């Protein structure tokens, strides 16, 4: 065992941080309480962990994302069709933006 030479990043990828922040923010504004969140998240992790060992990194946040999407859809705060078209809208925005320029979603979708 060796001591880590540099501090580990708190979040490995920017989207982990964004997803974390969205969830904490929704909890703070009272959309769900934390035990409620933890129960749903635990269930997703357990389901994902049935087929393979989760490494606690990328797969952990994939489970987190699935949990949040499902929770919001189940409670009527998000519709699957809206999420799909926004996801496609963002993909198109990235593909249509010259490298180096800021990426903006089609205003019709915001």
């Amino acid at each position, binding site marked *: 065992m060796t001591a880590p030479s540099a501090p580990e990043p708190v979040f490995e990828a920017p989207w982990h941080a964004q997803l974390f922040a969205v969830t904490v923010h929704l909890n703070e504004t009272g959309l769900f309480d934390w035990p409620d969140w933890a129960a749903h998240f635990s269930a997703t992790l357990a389901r994902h962990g049935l087929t393979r060992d989760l490494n606690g*990194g990328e797969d952990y946040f994939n489970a987190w994302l699935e949990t949040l999407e499902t929770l919001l859809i189940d409670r009527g705060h998000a519709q699957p069709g809206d999420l799909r078209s926004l996801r496609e809208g963002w993909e198109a925005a990235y593909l249509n933006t010259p490298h180096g320029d800021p990426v903006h979603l089609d205003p019709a979708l915001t």
Partner: protein
Amino acid sequence: MDSRLSLGQSAPMPHDHHDHDHPHALLPPEPALRVKALETLLTRKGLIDPAALDEIIDTYENRIGPRNGAQVVARAWSDPGFRTALLEDATAVVADMGFFGRQGEHMVAVENTDEVHNIVVCTLCSCYPWPLLGIPPGWYKSDAYRARVVREPRKVLAEFGVELPEQTAVRVWDSTAEVRYLVIPQRPAGSEGLSEEKLTKLVTRDSMIGTGLAKTP
């Protein structure tokens, strides 16, 4: 060290292909696009405030971390009255020091002694005392750690380089969304007379989870 438990690090970042030019902006990975979709939708509905998201990320990346917990431990080592109060009601004592917030609502401090070594896990997900330790490391969230530390704690400890005397019992605490634990590691030999500030430097994150010991000065 952590590699044995984390069983493979996260996927390579998407910036790995430099073999062709990018006429367009680099496409983020699939889940990142889904997160952007969520953010856009929730912002549109007035359910989230993008400025609040930045604030939360800044807090957890820069202002909250194991240094907070280390201050609590160093004070417990230095001040017997504080130690007693901490063991009786960690939530109140820690809040008095200004450490409160998400996942810090119900804190319990457990103290390592010659007789017992405490170690913390969350077998269901990844409950963790954020206000004191920040965001948990990858291995804490891995199936390998979550399952094995309960079954074979001494073996897991050995992988972290911690060998305990035979007579020391190992006690594993399973965190929940309601209760989170802070391990008070044993004060290391040779730290007598050190200031509280110097003591904080001996307190590692892992020593407050129980997978490590405090450093010796």
